Structure formats: C-alpha cells, structure tokens
C-alpha cells in the first residue's frame, strides 16, 4: 500500500505553502517529515488526510488516485498536536472508541488495547479520565487511540513534542517498536532533527514548501544535497566555512584553505565559482595538541587549521570544544570528559572524505549528482 504524492502544490493567497512535492512512502515504513516551522510539514499532512485539496498534483494510494476522495475514504489514522480526548470517557474508553465505532468485537478490542497500552506505559492509568492525567499521559492516550486501529497509514504531527526530553527519548523507541510489530506505515512530522533521524527508515526534508531530499538518515547526515540540509541535522551543528571559490580553492575570512586533489577536483567543476562553502561535522574534526603526532599523513587530512580553544562544554558522554580559527569558530566533538585548557593552541584536522563542498544558487553540494536526491523537485 504505497502512498504517493505527485507534483502536489498548495497555495494560500500569495504564499506557496507546498511547491510541486513528489514523495513516495513505502508500505510498512517509518517515514519522517522534517523541516523548520513554516516549511510546509503540517500542510502536507492536511493534504494527505484529505482535510484540504491540492491546487495541483495528485495523491495516489496503491496507484489509485484519491486526490478528490474524502478523509474517511482514505482510511488514515491521525494524532494531532492538540489532542482531542473525550473528557467524559476514561483513557480506556477513549482508546477503544475508534474500534467500538467500527463494531469490533469486545475481545478484539481488549487484545488490541493491551498491545498498545503496555509499550506506551499507560496500563496503570487506563481507568482515569483525561482531567486526572498529566499532559504527558494524555498525549500517550491520544497516541494509543490512533494506533489501536489498523489504517493505511498513521499520520503523526509532532506527537511527542509536548513531553519532556527524557520521556521523548523513550517514546520514540516505543513508537518504532509498535510500528514495526504492527506492520504499520508511519508518516511522522517533527521539527526535532534527532527525532526525525533516530527511528526513521526514510527522512523527507522540507524547505519552504519543497521536498529537497528524501533518503535514509545516514545519507541525509553524510551526503546532504545542500547546505540547508547539512545545517538542519546534527548536533552540535555542522561547521561551515564561507568564502569565494576560485581555482579549486576557497578564500574567506579564515584565510585560503588548501585542499586535497579530490576536493580540488569537485571545486573545479563549472558550477564551483562565486560564493561557496566547505562544511564538516564536529564529529569529523580531529583535535591535535602540540607535540602529538599528526594523523594527517596516514589519513590524508584535507583541511588543517591552527587555532585556540575558546571553550569546552562537557556534556557527559562527550564534550564540545569551540576553537577560534582566524576569525571563525569551529566545533569539535571529543569523547568523554576532556580537559582541553581554554586558550591552549591546537591543530584541527578533517579528513577529505568528511569535507562537504557547497556552491552556487541554493548552496548545492558539488560532489553529488542530482540523481542522488530521490524525490527532489526538478521543476523551476
């Protein structure tokens, strides 16, 4: 039961909320839809649900055009940001409601209820009414009510955004388990990059109404198609050197960066002129202290910078060092509790394979073919 959007656009007055979106959602997959506020995530959900009609394009379920079908005929289940629980019903009755309405047998209802209540951790509160529940508990009851009923796909719009950080980490895993065990298709909207990445089979990245990349989380992380996508995922955020590209080099406030042959080749492409950027993730930066043997010879470091440690933030499993390098501040991820002294001189190295070059209109990645960005929009 694949779900497909073909060239779907939606306009509100002068604003193009969705711009020729192509997206194929594989049956049984966990598809996350990720972008900043205003990128068009919720509009996409409303169009899928049939609460709104696209101005252009088609929505297909299993190859059948459902663009003009009403919500009920599409058979999607939905968890909304603002949960609408019935106040006069217990949590149990709320969750069972969709099945009762469809005339399921009580025994089936009980079995299915147990299957969703346990992983959601709401077994003990099933007999309470919404007013007696905390915000987090109400949210989980609403999720349970959506998941208890089989549907073509379960659509979720920021389903756990209201929970505290610890609970969110657990809940995303429980949702993944449920999705996998029940064989459901999830379309999961979030503005949290870690949530979008951690349990998704596929991520769709939205930028101002356009789907700019659809890929596995690793591909999004390693091979983002544009600087926009690169900066959207990863914590701490990716390091970016901006400058002018010319003759296979990048010149900017940080000075001129000397590059390896591979990088120079991609920067020598015709598209590689004018404004450009080199980006690399903090977890790809190697910090070398004076006197230590450099790994550059063995690894072929593409970039090397001398800098001074501005500060080190220790976060438990790892630390983040911020290093001032000729007018730019770069971040490096260090394992464990490291004690680089503030103000000390260090060298930063980045291997060639970890440097991403971007250039031109929209800061597209230079060393990736257009065909790699599945589902990307080719029009305009």
């Amino acid at each position, binding site marked *: 039961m694949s779900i497909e959007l073909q060239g779907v656009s939606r306009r509100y007055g002068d604003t193009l909320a969705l711009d020729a979106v192509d997206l194929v959602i594989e049956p049984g997959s966990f598809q996350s839809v990720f972008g900043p506020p205003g990128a068009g995530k919720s509009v996409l959900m409303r169009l899928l649900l049939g609460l709104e009609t696209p101005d252009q394009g088609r929505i297909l379920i299993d190859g059948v055009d459902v663009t003009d079908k009403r919500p009920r005929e599409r058979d999607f289940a939905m968890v909304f940001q603002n949960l609408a629980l019935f106040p006069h019903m217990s949590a149990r009755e709320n969750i069972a409601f969709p099945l009762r309405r469809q005339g399921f047998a009580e025994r089936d209802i009980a079995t299915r209820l147990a299957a969703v209540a346990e992983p959601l951790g709401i077994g003990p509160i099933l007999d309470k009414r919404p007013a007696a529940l905390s915000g987090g508990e109400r949210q989980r009851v609403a999720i349970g009510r959506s998941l208890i009923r089989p549907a073509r796909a379960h659509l979720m719009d920021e389903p756990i955004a209201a929970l505290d950080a610890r609970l969110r980490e657990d809940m995303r895993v429980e949702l993944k388990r449920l999705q996998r065990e029940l064989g459901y298709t999830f379309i999961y909207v979030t503005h949290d990059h870690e949530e979008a990445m951690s349990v998704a089979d596929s991520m769709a990245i939205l930028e101002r109404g356009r789907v700019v990349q659809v890929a596995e989380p690793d591909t999004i992380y390693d091979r983002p198609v544009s600087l926009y996508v690169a900066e959207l995922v990863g914590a701490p955020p990716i390091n970016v050197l901006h400058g002018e590209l010319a003759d296979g080099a990048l010149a900017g406030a940080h000075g001129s960066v000397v590059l390896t042959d591979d990088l120079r080749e991609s920067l020598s492409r015709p598209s590689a002129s004018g404004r450009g950027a080199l980006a690399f993730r903090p977890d790809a930066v190697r910090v070398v202290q004076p006197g230590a043997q450099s790994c550059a010879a063995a690894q072929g470091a593409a970039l090397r910078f001398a800098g001074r440690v501005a500060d080190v933030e220790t976060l438990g499993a790892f630390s983040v060092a911020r290093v001032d390098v000729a007018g730019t501040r770069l971040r490096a991820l260090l394992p464990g*509790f490291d004690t680089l002294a503030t103000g000390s001189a260090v060298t930063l190295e980045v291997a060639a394979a970890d440097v991403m070059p971007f250039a031109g209109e929209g800061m597209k990645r230079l060393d990736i073919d257009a065909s790699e960005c599945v589902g990307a929009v080719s029009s305009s």
Partner: protein
Amino acid sequence: MSSITLEGVGKRFGNFTAVQRMDLAVENGEFVAILGPSGCGKSTTMNMVAGLESVSDGRIRFGDRDVTDEPVERRGVGFVFQNYAIFTHMSVRRNLEFGLLVQGRPASERRRAVERMAEFMELTARLDQNAATLSVNELQKLAIGRSAIVEPAIFLLDEPLSNLDAAFRERMRSDLRQIQQRLGQTMLYVTHDQIEAMGLADRIAVMSNGELQQFDTPGNIYREPANVYVARFIGAPSMNILPAELVEGGRRVRVGGNASGATSLEVPTRYRGAVSDRLARGGLRSTSLLLGFRPEAVDGPSSGAEPGSDGPGVMRWSLAPTLIETVGRRRIGHFELAGTQLRGTWHRSVPLCAGVPVDLVLGERNLYLFDADDERALPSEPMGEPSRQLVGEPGPRGGITGVSS
C-alpha cells in the same frame, strides 16, 4: 559579588513539602545549576533565594548578610525567567537601559553600558526598533542583557533557554558562560535539561521530590553519581540499571537471573571493600544489588580486540539488539534482559543489526553498584581520572588525539 548560603532551608505549602530542609553553599562567582524534573522544588528554591517566596525553615545568607527576612527589592538580585517580561511597547534601547534608569545612573554611563551590552548580544542593529518586532531568540537575548546590564552581584535564571530552538540554545549556552566569566557574578540557574546543567555549571545541585540528591561538579556527578536517581537523570541515553545478585561469596555479581543472556562478572575492584563489609554485616537482602553502566561505556576500552585478549577487569557480554536508533554517527542499540530494557551506543563503524548478537565490552571502572533497596551508590575507592585515548591512536572515531594525561 556575593556567595549564597542556604542553611536548612525548606518550604511547605500546607501539608505539602515543596522543598525539604536543605543546605547549599554557592561560592562567590560560582555558576550553580539546580537541575530536576518539573515539580522537584527547583523553582521554589530559587524563588526563596530571590525573596519571591518566604522560607518555612532555615536561613539564607548572601555573603555574611542574612537576607532571610529581606524583601525582594532589597536583595539586589537580577532575574531572567522563561517568559521574558520584556516591555514590548518600548524600544530595545529603552528595555536595556531600564534597570540603569531605575538606579538613577547618568545618561552617558547608560549609553555606554547599553551599547556594550547590545554589541555583546548582537542587538546593535535593533537598538531603536520596538521590542515587539524581535524574534523569539532576540527577545531572550534582550531579556538576559537587560538583567545582566545592572551587573547584580547575584544573577538568577529560571529556564531562560527553554523557549529557544536547539541550535540557538547551544549558542546561548556559550554566551551565558562568557557573560559570567566577564562579570564574575554568582549565578544560580534552574533547568530541567541535564545538557544545559552539564554544559554551563561549575557545580550542579540535582533535586528530586523536593530533596537535594547531590551537589557536585558535572564531572563528579557523571562519574560518581550518589544514587540511581542521579545516575539516570544525568547522561543521555540514561544509565542502564539492572537487578543483580552477589554470588560466589561476593566475588562476582550475577545479572539476568536465569534468562538467556544472563551473565556474571567480577565485582569491580573499587567496590570490593564495600561488598565484603556488606556481606560481613549480613541480613536478608545483603546480596541484592543494582548494577549500572552507561550506554556510551559499552564500546569499551579494548573494543575491536579479539575475545580472550581482554585485560583484567574487562568484561565481554554478548546480547542481540532488538532495535537500533541512528543519532548522527552513533548507533543506539536496544536490548532486553529478563524484562529490563538496556541500551548501548556505538560508533557506526561497529556493525549493529537487530537480532544479531554484539559484544558489550565493559571495563570495570564503567560499572556501578547500588543498594537494591535505598538505591544509593555503594561506597567505592576513588577512581581517579578516566582513561584517555592513547596518544596518536587514530581509531575510527573523530576525536581527540595526543592528549597527554
């Protein structure tokens, strides 16, 4: 500048104890985070320090001065709250200089201070705009700048970053540390976010259910948590905790009971004294413990080495993950052992597949023992500094090399 001392400070609302009597000594110029989930009493504690809330028990001192009965306006503290209380009908400049106006500072001084603060907070271009036109991020910077500009001896912040997006929070953490380093204020910072507390504070006071659980540096809290609550609250993903039983006369601990995947391992060296004391005392539950290890510790000291080549104190434990998460270049593997959920994180260069057993390699210094009943950490010999990656060792991870220890 001023130290803050809480002596047996507690707060009751009717029958409800919001804060149990606690002692806390914050040094002059120190940055202390009060960390805990909502309802743990952290904001109440801060409100008592501010004078917004009276104490039910105890005394509060700023330096040598007892301020317990002083009203808020005489305590001379600066505040920033989650909802930033900016005068949106005024310009950014007027907002910034407001505190200085109230203090009756001369115009030239106000102007200089405002311009300096605006530059630091990157609000210079916005100075003459109405505050209502600012973005959420800029509003929060303005709120912090407005309080910092009067250079109060004590600066209190209650979840000041919780409305901001993740990337900007990271920036603001760095800015807050710089403000504090520059002005040398004593800062008390309330948060539910352990990352903020770890990243910002000189010391962290962890609270739960109105009770102070531990007060120490981020490093000590992470390495030597006082109890299961602190162990699980600090660090992400949370520390794994599983029921364990002392066996073989206290030489080993067994986990997993009779379930498949159950194993036993040597009692870590630093706990041996405590374990033999415990067994000598006897008692029905003396062999019942909780074993803890952090998910990030499973990629252990000799990861990648052949089985059998592990040095002393290294345990290897084979379990099959049920589910795998992707977080950047890390993988979080989820496991189940006798009904307990466990997690381990690996660099993605370690192949991890659901259903295929993988080795959890744990050095003994990464294992923790807690009492099964009161959940307190067993007394242990000091561990010293954690081991560092070897000089010049490349390894598959981006990271530090050449740190001399």
